[in-house]
Structure formats: structure tokens, C-alpha cells
């Protein structure tokens, strides 16, 4: 179950985004993390990224994953997310789990794919700190495509970050610098 039902005011700079802290209650967190630990992850690597990804979790039938999918994507929550971002109604979500280990990274990209309205990432690594790497880093882009890193979000345990997908939503995941496993459930709300 969700512990937090409230979405605070969306920050507009460098593009609309918001962080919901303490998103899940403790018992849900336990069973979700247990379930995610039991999944198989494949190593994915390209010029743009290096990480471990689970199978697509959108349609998997698993008691704990079903609860998580409801918490992130039930009608009530989708309505709150749409209201917070003043977006069009959100019809569905997709989701997968990702693990970043030592040396893994995700370089700048904007997430733009048709029908993606809001991106989200639920952070599930206890006691992560800035020097460990893995921050979600946000860029400001001007009209000439000049970019500047302007915000770095430490992926605090049980925090949910959401941002509006647009041509401005450039972001990256900083390289993991210590021997940790940065676990997230990540996906998009679709229109």
C-alpha cells in the first residue's frame, strides 16, 4: 500500500518534476524488494548505458508485483499524477526493475517516445549517498541546445521521482562509484 497519498507542488525547473518521499509503507516495501530480488536480470550494455534489467513487469502476475503496480498505477494515483502535472489523463503505466552496479551508468537522453507523458522511478536502495554515485542528474537546455547540469537527485530509499517527458527532459544516471546495487522500478505513465 502507498504510505504517501499526497503529491507536493511540481517544480518547474529545469522541467516539471516532483519527488514523493516515503512512497510505500514498510510491509509493502519488504515484500516488493523480496520479489524484485527473486527476479532474473539481464546485463544490458550499449554506447548509452550499462545496467542490469529485469523482464518487463507490466503484465507479470506476481502477488507483490501486482500490489506495486497498483500502488504506482491505479486509477486514483494516476488521476493525482495527472492533476499534479496538469497533464492529459493517464491511461496506463509500464514498469521494469533496473540494477546499477559498480561502473554502470546511463548517459543523457530525454525519454521521448510516443505516448510517454510522465516518467517515474521508485528508488529502492537503502542508505545510498551522493559519493556512491547513481544520482539522477537533470540538465537545462536552451534554445540552441546548450546544456547545463543543474540538479542532482540522490535516489533516496523509498522515494518516487516523476517528471514530464518532453524535448526538455534531458537527464542521466551518474556512474556508480562504489560496490553497491542501485535498485529502481522505472517506467512511464502513458496518455
Amino acid at each position, binding site marked *: 500500500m502507498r504510505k504517501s497519498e499526497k503529491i507536493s507542488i511540481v517544480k518547474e525547473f529545469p522541467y516539471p518534476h516532483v519527488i514523493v518521499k516515503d512512497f510505500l509503507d514498510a510491509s509493502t516495501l519488504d515484500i516488493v524488494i523480496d520479489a524484485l530480488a527473486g527476479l532474473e536480470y539481464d546485463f544490458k550494455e550499449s554506447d548509452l548505458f550499462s545496467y542490469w534489467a529485469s523482464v518487463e513487469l507490466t503484465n507479470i502476475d506476481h502477488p507483490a508485483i501486482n500490489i506495486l503496480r497498483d500502488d504506482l498505477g491505479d486509477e486514483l494515483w494516476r488521476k493525482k499524477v495527472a492533476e499534479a502535472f496538469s497533464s492529459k489523463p493517464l491511461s496506463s503505466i509500464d514498469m521494469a526493475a533496473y540494477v546499477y552496479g559498480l561502473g554502470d551508468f546511463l*548517459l543523457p537522453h*530525454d525519454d521521448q517516445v510516443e505516448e510517454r507523458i510522465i516518467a517515474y522511478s521508485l528508488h529502492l536502495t537503502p542508505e545510498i549517498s551522493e559519493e556512491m554515485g547513481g544520482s539522477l542528474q537533470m540538465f537545462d537546455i536552451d534554445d540552441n*541546445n546548450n546544456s547545463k547540469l543543474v540538479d542532482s537527485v540522490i535516489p533516496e530509499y523509498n522515494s518516487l521521482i516523476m517528471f514530464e517527458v518532453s524535448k526538455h527532459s534531458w537527464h542521466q544516471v551518474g*556512474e556508480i562509484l562504489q560496490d553497491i546495487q542501485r535498485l529502481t522500478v522505472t517506467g512511464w505513465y502513458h496518455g
Partner: protein
Amino acid sequence: MVDINFYYLEDATLSNLNRIFNSADIPFIRLSKFLNEAPDKIEPKLSSEEKIGYYNRKIGNALLDDFWKSSDFNDFLCKATGLKPKFRKSNHFSYYPGDYSLLHMDASETSRLLVVYDLTKEWRQEWGGYDLYTSPDKDPLVCNRDFGSLMIVKLDSGDLSCTRYVSLKSQFSTYMDCITYDLE
């Protein structure tokens, strides 16, 4: 004065290079100790070059700009590859920790010959920074850093190249002259 290692100018060697180059999946040869004396003190004047989603690196004039344009080197390229390359541009690139380029940066390119002369003195594979070449339906080609090596790659329209992200843990940076030749 820059001289090609005499071994690479012998007829038998050139014949072999031509055969190896043209039999590779992605036409490619790598020639270690290519010059008799590799430039020792590397102090290129560099400036930052960033296009988000494409590259973030340092760029300057090629250290051996005159040599890459010379008839001596062009003759060598013709014999080693069997092609008729025409000089287009040369640059010196350096990738510091955190720098990268991505494959789609040359998505609009046509057929070309890429030459990379590696001036990276100290390197570990785990720091990344290697060159990556891709071609549809072919295995990607990975070229690790190796001081003094010359790499020659023929890429066609639709083929892509990049230099892989350099780890923030890297204690050094990569240095290379990169030259592009047009192909008829």
C-alpha cells in the same frame, strides 16, 4: 619528421594488409608502432565540445595534421586498403573522465575511411574509452586504446562509430588524432 615504420611499407606487408582489411566483416586493420617515433610530449590545445545526447569531449587540431594530408600517407592508405581515399578533415580528440560520444552522432554520414592514431599512454580496459564501430547485421567492432597504434576502418552509409564513455574512476584521459577520408 614523421616516418612510417618501414615494415609497413614493404610490398609483402602491404599485400597482406590489403588482404586482411578487405576480408574483415567491417573492413579494418590495426597497426601497432605505426610510426618510427610516436610523438612523445603530447600537449595539444584543446577546447570542450558538447552536444547533449551526441558527445561531450575535448577537441583540437590534429597533432600530425600535415602528415595525415601528405602524399606519403595517402599512398600508404591506397596500397593498404585498395581504396582511393580523399582527405576530408582531421582533429585531435581527448576524452576525459565522464566524456563520451554516441553512435548516432554520425548517422547522416556516407561512405568514409576513418583513421585513428592512438596517443593514449596509460590505460586500463575497465575505464572504457574504447572505439566502437557498428554496421547493420554485423558484429560490432571494438578497438581498445593502444599507444602508437594506427586503426583504419571503412564505414558505409548506415555504419556508426563512437568512443565509449570514460569512467569517472579513470586516472588518465584518452588522446587520439582522428582523420576522415571521403571515398569515391
